[in-house]
């Protein structure tokens, strides 16, 4: 653990140093990125052996805060989260160093890097904390530093709003966590996780589970607590979005899993609840994503979907525990944890890609993009890989995690009771719908942004971004493919973490996962065959066309004489028929000026899909609360006599009450 702490120290220390040399932006960046690389590297030294070799590293130091102790532990579950955090952290730092322009930073780069390195360090600390107070502290530092990162461009009103929404949401979540840990800790008379685990029978478990679900779910982005995600992710600089969406929201998943290990055997309704939340998030998340025209907002909603998929896995795992089906438990938790890693890779890649697009064209609006693949071939290719990967298409990693989840659902559906079959049916339907819509969504994202003709001058003038950016994206593309091709090995090494998360023995978990691992060999095989067939077909096509005339012409235009890029299918039109299916919940706003007369001068149609929950749930609640609180305002009307009257009335009531 000493190395781990040295790593954290390096991260924070280099961040502070970067902040101190804020006047020299380039130097600050160099210091911070070097620190991030070394710090994350040091953290990986103990984390990798733990992840693959098992075992638990612990360290404990006294701390003078009441209830607090510096207890940390690195078990495979923690390591599973540490590794993506550290790796993606380093990649994001390298990317960000190039992405942020020192010339325009105006002295804020130092603070940005301080927050960035602190974010990585605090995420890592969250994951290893074994004491409630330490956990909460790290958790809050994580929220605060990411808030500062989102506020990088604070002069834009929408960024400020996004940052505010983010911090408010995360604070409300933290409030639930405060209640969760303190109530649990009060029952255990200690905030150490071990002590809490020991007194799991003495707590109101249902209440605490709901608190944990809300608290961690807010960070993770479960529906209906996801509203901050589509605000904050587009507002943040892209490397920050990648880090936040790729790994930071996973800390919510981690927290939920860790919290679940504190309880005894879960009742079945926990599993059902989590499953329903997961399916809702998965389906509605991706439908909302489909409805967006802002590339980064789309990706943010897609994160909601993937978090939903992870929640489905955890829910299935819980059901397995509740009904005593170890294979279901292993597959559910295994699929969820694997998806954590795979989503981190894919979403990081996609946000980096979106950042590159933003960098090159200065817009995130899909309806103003197009034709970027010719202009930014590397970015385009990696974005395509990321799109396929995030849809769970073989041979990429996310397919394997979805396969595990489907397998879990089929275990529940083939062996379980009617209730479990219903759960399985819901899970399968949700996953399949989610998968289908994801494909549609990313066909749209990639297709509209990178294919076809440019829809604006900015897109037409785009150029490929610099080497560090493309290199980072390439690395992640390779990782996305490897995690799929090496599936049997990857899933096999997951056993320790799954055993931690599900609270079952390592042997049982390995046996449970084994059901899937045996088959995963065929997945690798299929991937190999697929690649081989593709190569053969490509070769065939090349051989066939080698001697033949190849013409170049315009796209088939059905005989229309003057096609222009503006006549292409847009993001809105691509999404419209699909989104219409969910009109009941989405409430897309349309602004439509219909064509009139025989020679219509102009007609417009624009759609905007706001977050239904934000509009129908949170906005009324906030308005209600503020109206209720506004009724207090006349109390402070400025008349001293009435102020004295308040005192007198208070006194009178108190006297009456105490002498009744």
């Amino acid at each position: 653990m000493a190395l781990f702490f040295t790593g954290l120290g390096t991260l924070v220390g280099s961040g502070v140093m970067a902040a101190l040399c804020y006047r020299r932006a380039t130097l600050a960046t160099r210091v911070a990125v070097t620190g991030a690389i070394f710090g994350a590297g040091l953290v990986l030294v103990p984390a990798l052996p733990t992840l693959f070799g098992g075992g638990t590293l612990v360290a404990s130091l006294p701390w003078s805060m009441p209830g607090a102790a510096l207890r940390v532990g690195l078990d495979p579950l923690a390591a599973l989260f540490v590794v993506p955090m550290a790796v993606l952290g380093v990649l994001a730092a390298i990317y960000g160093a190039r992405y942020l322009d020192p010339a325009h930073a105006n002295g804020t780069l130092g603070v940005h890097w301080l927050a960035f390195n602190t974010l990585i360090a605090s995420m890592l600390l969250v994951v290893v904390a074994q004491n409630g107070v330490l956990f909460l502290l790290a958790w809050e530092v994580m929220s605060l530093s990411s808030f500062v990162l989102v506020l990088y461009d604070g002069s834009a009103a929408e960024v400020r709003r996004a940052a505010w929404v983010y911090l408010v949401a995360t604070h409300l979540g933290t409030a639930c966590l405060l209640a969760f840990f303190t109530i649990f800790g009060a029952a255990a008379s200690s905030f150490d996780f071990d002590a809490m685990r020991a007194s799991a029978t003495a707590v109101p478990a249902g209440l605490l589970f709901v608190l944990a679900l809300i608290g961690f779910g807010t960070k993770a982005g479960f529906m209906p607590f996801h509203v901050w995600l589509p605000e904050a992710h587009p507002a943040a600089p892209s490397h920050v979005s990648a880090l936040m969406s790729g790994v930071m929201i996973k800390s919510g998943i981690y927290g939920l899993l860790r919290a679940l290990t504190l309880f005894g055997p879960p009742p079945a309704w926990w599993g059902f609840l989590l499953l329903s939340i997961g399916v809702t998030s998965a389906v509605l998340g991706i439908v909302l994503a489909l409805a967006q025209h802002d590339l980064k907002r789309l990706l943010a909603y897609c994160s909601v979907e993937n978090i939903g998929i992870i929640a489905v896995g955890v829910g299935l795992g819980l059901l397995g525990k509740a009904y005593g089906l170890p294979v279901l438990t292993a597959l559910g938790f295994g699929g969820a944890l694997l998806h954590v890693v795979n989503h981190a890779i894919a979403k990081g890649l996609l946000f980096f890609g979106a950042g590159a697009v933003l960098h090159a064209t200065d817009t995130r609006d899909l309806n103003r993009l197009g034709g970027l693949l010719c202009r930014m071939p590397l970015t385009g290719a990696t974005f395509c890989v990321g799109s396929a990967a995030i849809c769970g298409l073989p041979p990429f990693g996310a397919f394997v995690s979805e396969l595990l989840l489907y397998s879990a659902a089929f275990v529940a559906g083939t062996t379980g009771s009617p209730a479990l079959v219903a759960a399985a049916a819901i899970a399968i339907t949700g996953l399949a719908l989610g998968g289908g819509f994801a494909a549609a969504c990313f066909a749209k994202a990639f297709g509209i942004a990178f294919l076809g003709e440019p829809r604006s001058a900015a897109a037409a003038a785009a150029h490929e971004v610099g080497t560090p950016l493309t290199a980072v994206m390439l690395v992640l593309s390779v990782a996305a493919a490897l995690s799929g091709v090496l599936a049997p090995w990857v899933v096999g090494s997951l056993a320790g973490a799954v055993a931690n998360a599900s609270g079952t023995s390592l042997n049982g978990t390995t046996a449970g996962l084994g059901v899937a691992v045996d088959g995963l060999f065929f997945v690798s095989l299929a991937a190999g065959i697929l690649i081989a067939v593709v190569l053969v077909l490509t070769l065939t096509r090349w051989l066939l066309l080698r001697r033949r005339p190849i013409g170049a012409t315009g796209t088939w235009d059905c005989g229309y004489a003057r096609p222009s890029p503006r006549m292409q299918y847009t993001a809105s039109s691509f999404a419209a028929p699909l989104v219409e299916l969910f009109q009941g919940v989405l409430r897309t706003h349309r602004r439509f000026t219909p064509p009139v007369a025989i020679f219509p001068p102009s007609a417009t149609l624009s759609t905007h899909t706001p977050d239904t929950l934000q509009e129908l749930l949170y906005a009324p609640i906030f308005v209600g609360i503020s109206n209720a609180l506004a009724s207090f305002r006349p109390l402070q009307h400025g008349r001293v006599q009435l102020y004295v009257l308040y005192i007198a009335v208070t006194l009178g009531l108190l006297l009456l009450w105490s002498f009744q």
Partner: protein
Amino acid sequence: MRHALDFVLVTLVLTDLVLLGSSRLTACIRLVAAQGVLLAFLPLALTWPELEVAAMALAASTLLVKGVAFPLVLERAMRDARARREIEPFVGYTPSLLVGLGMLGAGTWLADRLSADVVRSPLMVPVALSMILTGLFFVISRKKAVSQVLGYLVLENGTYVLGISLLSETPFLVELGMLLDVFVAVFVMGIAIFQINREFDHIDVDQLDSLKG
């Protein structure tokens, strides 16, 4: 001695009631001054027939502060402000009288609840409490700054009576400290009224409501 004590107490209650019913500020100030003089008798009346040095000193300083100094400060303030009458208080004069009676009842109720075994006169604690409440009511219901100070003074007088009735042997230093505090308070309030009058050209507290929300 009981009778003298009771006489003083009843007179205090009466001054309260008259105060509630009068609109002329000069008269109000005089009434409060009269209360101060009456209060000066209390320490003497309690220790009678022995004449303790401490009690006499207290009586003398009370007379000086409450009977002489306060009226002077307040009349000065009133003259500067050219305020003669309390016009349109929040609660009219007749209802005020009724409230005064209510305060007497409330004081009696509370004193009864407290059941503090007071040796000298059963009237003392009820009167003290009703004076406190009346003072409070005066502060709440009047608009002129001077009236509010008068209310505060009545309230203070009430606490004075309460202190004397409850604590037989308060250290002299404590008593003096309290008296000094009240003195400074009225002095400070006087200065504040002076400044307010200079700044606003009136001492109508009701119109001091620019700070709100």
